[in-house]
Structures are given as C-alpha cells and as structure tokens.
C-alpha cells in the first residue's frame, strides 16, 4: 500500500494505533495522523464522524 491510497470505514472507540494494527499496518511507519485536519497522536480514540488521514513515512532525508 506504500504510495497508494485507500479509504476505509473504521470503528469508533478504538485508538488510531489499534485500528492501524487491525488493518495490518505497522504503526511505526505512519508519520502523521490528522483527525479533522488537526494533528493527533496514535493514541487518539476515534469518535463518530471523525475523518482520519494517515501519511506513511516512505522515505526521508
């Protein structure tokens, strides 16, 4: 999924980290978590109606 794009619906009440893991994504490779256009940590608990964007660190430097 690196470099690609996907949209999924996720459950509320779980953290971003837990949700990533359940989707088979290693949380450590996610650089940025933006919820409703505000940066959040991966421990943010997802609420009803939240729009979450995650960006992977593909490269750097």
């Amino acid at each position, binding site marked *: 999924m*690196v470099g690609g794009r996907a949209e999924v619906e996720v459950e509320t009440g779980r953290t971003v980290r837990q949700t990533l893991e359940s989707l088979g994504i*290693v949380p*450590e490779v*996610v650089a940025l978590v933006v919820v409703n256009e505000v940066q959040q*940590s*991966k421990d943010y608990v997802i609420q009803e109606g939240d729009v979450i964007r995650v960006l992977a*660190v593909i*490269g750097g430097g």
Partner: protein
Amino acid sequence: MNGYGGKILRVNLSKGEIKKEPTPADTARDFIGGRGFGIYFLLKEVPKGADPLGPENKLIISSGPISGMMVPGGGKCDWTTKAPLTGGYASSSMGGHFTAEMRYAGLDSIILEGISPKPVFLFIDDDKIELRDASDLWGKDTFTVEKQFKDKLGEEYQVAVIGVGGENLVPYACINHDYGRQAGRGGVGAVMGSKKVKAIVVHGTKSIPVADKEGYRKAGMALYKACKDAEGLKDWTRYGTTIVVSWCDEVGALPTRNFSAGSFEDGKNLYGPVMREKIVITDKGCFGCPSPCGKYSRTKKYGTYVEGPEYETIGLMGSNLGIDDIEAVAQANLLCDNLGIDTISAGNAIGWAMECFEKGIFTKKDTDGLELKFGNVDATFKLIEKIARREGFGALLAEGVKRASQKVGKGSEKFAIQVKGMEQSAYATHNATAMLLAYMTCDVGAHHNRSWAITYDLQVGRDLVTPEKVARVIWLQNFRPMFDVLGGCRLQWVELNIDRELYVPALEAITGIHRSWQDLEKVGERIWNLTRLFWARENEGFDRAWDMPSPRFYQDAPKSGATRGQITKLEDVNRLLDMYYEQRGWTLQGLPKTETIEALGLKAMVA
C-alpha cells in the same frame, strides 16, 4: 553537446585569470554532471596532501543535465572540494535557482583555483565574466549582500555568498543562496573564504540544446503529473521536512540533549503543525519544483524572517539543546544563515558544549560567563555569533566537536557525536542499525542524505543485523546521490514516492544517451568508490576506525523516551561494518580491493 551548457569555467584567483574550456564529452558520458563532475575534477586536479584552505585546493561547482530544465526538482548544484572540517571529501548540494542560471550562462562547472590577493566577487553575465572588488562587501552578512546585488542588478541575477563564518575560515562555514538555501556541510564556505571570494553572481540567457524536444516535453510533463497526483503532495507541501518531527520523537530518532536520548519530553512544541500555525507565513521552493518544501517563517518574539527551520535545524538547535521554543529555533536558524555557518554542525557542537558544562568539564570561567545549560536560548544565540567570529569560547567550538573534544579531553571525546570529524545530523541512532551504518559509511562524514533508512529499520526490525539491511544501505548509497549527479532534487522520489522510471525518458530526451536506473546506479557505485579512494589518499592510515560511530551509540542507552534502555552492541557495530565491506568489495580495513577497482573500470582514474 545535448543536455549541457557546454563549458567549464576556470577561475585562477592567484593570477586573476579566467578561461572557458569545452566540457569533455567523455567526462559527460561517464560522470554525467553535478557530483560526478565534482569527484572527477577533485581527484584529477587537487594534488595529494593539499591544504583545504590553501591555494592548491579547488572549489568545484557543478550543475547537471536536468538543472534548469522542465523536470521537477531541477534546481540543485553540487559544491565539491577537499573538506576543511574532515580533511576528506566534501560534497554539498545547494537548491534554489543558482544552478539554472549557471546553465543559462552556458556553464556545466565553475572551478575556483588558487587564492585571490584581495576580496573579490565573481561576476558572470552570459559571456561577460569578471572578478570584481568585494572589499566593501567583506564583513557583511549574507542577506545584506544578496539583497544589495538583487536591488542593483535585478531579481534574475542569482547570488551565492559567504558570511563572516566563511571569511573567518570556520571549518563548517556554509554558502548561502536565495536567502534561505545553503551549500551547508564540510566547510565549503571556508574554502570559498580562503580564496577570498565573497560571492558568485550569475545570470544567463542561453539555451540548453536537447536531443529530442518533443520527448523532453512529454517526459517532463509526465513527471509533473506524477507529482501532482501523488497522495502525499498536500501534506508534504504543507509541512516540508518538518513533517517528520513528531514521528522521529515518537520512534526515538529525535536527537535530545546531545543525542543522550531520541525523544524529547517537550517535543510537541516543535512539531510541524504547531510550527505551521505559529510562525509559517508561506511556502518557498527551488527552480522547477512542484512541491515546495521550504517554509518561510516570521517570529513575533524576535522579529525573525527566515526560510526554515528545517527538520535538521529543529532537531539540532531545538531538541538537541533542550529548547522547545520554535521561535527561538527560527531565530537561531536566521543567525546561522546570516553569519554563514552550518546549523547542523553548530547545533551539534553547542549540544556537546552544554553536556560538558552540565558535567562540570567547563565552568563559566571557560565559557565567557555563559551558563551553558540545556535549554538556554540566550546562550545559544551568543554562541552562534562567537563561533562565526571565532571569538572567546566560540573559537573552540568553531573547530568542530572532534578537534574540540580532543583538545579538552576529560572523556568528552566519548560524547562528541561525529564520524570522520563531521558532526552527526539529526537522527539519534541508539537502536536503528541500518541508519547507524548509514552514518558510519556516508562518504562526507556523519550525514543522513545518502542512505536514509530509518523507516526500513522500523519495518523489518530496528535492531536486526543482517546482510539484507547492509544491502539496503548500499543500494540507497548508490541510488539516492544520483540526483546530485543529475543536478536535481531527490525529494520528489523520496517524499512523494513518484515512479523513478519516469526520469529515464527525460534524461534520454535531454542528453540523447539512454541510461536505465541500473546504469545510473553503476555510475553511483563508481563515484562511491572514487570518493572512498580520495579519503584514503588524503588521510595517512585511513582504515575502518574512521567508520566507527560515536561511542554514545554503543555505550549510552537512553534513560527516557521511545528508545529507553535500548542500545546497539559494539560487536554488532563491527559485524555491520564487516558485512558492508564484504558487499562493497572492500578489504576488512575498508579499502576498495584491486579487483573491485578494476571491475568498476576505475583503474585509469586512480593510477
């Protein structure tokens, strides 16, 4: 010759002589441009044992085939020389618009030779090329000088200028351009200062011939489309390199208090979105860039206007110094840029000094009365000035952490965070073995640009010591710096993850020569071995000891943060190095084997 300006400009500053030579076709075929031309001229023309600050050293500035072209990121030039900081190879990539203008003046390389008897600037306006008096510019800061030229000549004239740091031969003095871009590391600014060249001003109106105009247009548009369609474009452009501050903090890669840890308890005040909201006023890019990563900032606290701070400066002048105020980091950035010293080396050196102070190795008597505790913003600002002017306590720090710690002793060498004499840039590597190896074996010293491998470390297992990790580092070292050879930026591939195959038809349409990425990586491998041979030639007894990391990364496990309690074992450091040498075809002491040199077709070059 398709794809090239066609001329090498030689400036003999001792004699005041300027001449142009045609760019040799076989050099262009084999070394392509940029960093490739740099190592070619460096090896051929700088004699063994040359003093980096003496008349025999040369400063070689090279554009590449995609510089100034309608290809994303065609805004980089390479500055190659023998490094005052390390005594080895220096190659610094500078963005902005200088490379494009240089090409439009018909120049593939500019070679500064000898030493001018008095301060001069090099003026290039198409075929009108002169050395002009710079005595009224000497001593002025870089922004003032650049603005003076722009106001007088016009915005189209591109300026590369040294500050007081370069004039004072600070071993990590940089060269400034477009107010916010630098040829940053290794002391390229000091070499320019030693030659008494304050600035290079360039303007041109010529065209670059291309082999296939329609093919070039199509390939360039395909590359721009790929950037435009990239999933990460919006966030990358919004935050630039600051996009990774939070991530590095989270995974223990953010240098904190002289790399004693990889996470900073107040790090969240330095994160990209916080910076964007607090101080960023616009985005700024280089020539031909569709994804401007530069963040132009203004602080209310200090009245700063600066392009930056970048991730590196946030790491080394922020968390590394225990400073969590993004406005202070921006101001420190501005001071360094105006004075013309590398923010990475300066921040690293100040962090070392703070640890020394906190350990009682220095007292206020040594530090000109400065209370050098972590977090002291005012002391940081004062030290930057002192370093650039080599005054007082700044004179010691100006030497770089390797020499400074050797002079001071008292165990301070153990926490000088450097490799080969170059201060490590802003990734803490207590537990990230590919990135650690990358820093150990980078060809200019401890810099991250060649093989940035931390994501890979985290994907496969950060403490693994495997041949696959080593192979990954080697591949990145052969591949990534090829953008410096082509005269462009790697960040479109690195950050937007566009398909690198799209560059192949562009390069072929421009130069008329087909080169696959396999071909390009072969050139990269050849250049890598040549730069290694340069180190060996210039440093008596050069061996694997030169590739060892700071002992911090195998002795001092962090006491806090994401990598608390984690450290790399010394035996694993050596295992990594052994595997690296084996895969590179080098001896166990780290020198290219004869058969490797022959297999790469380099025998004639190093004869």
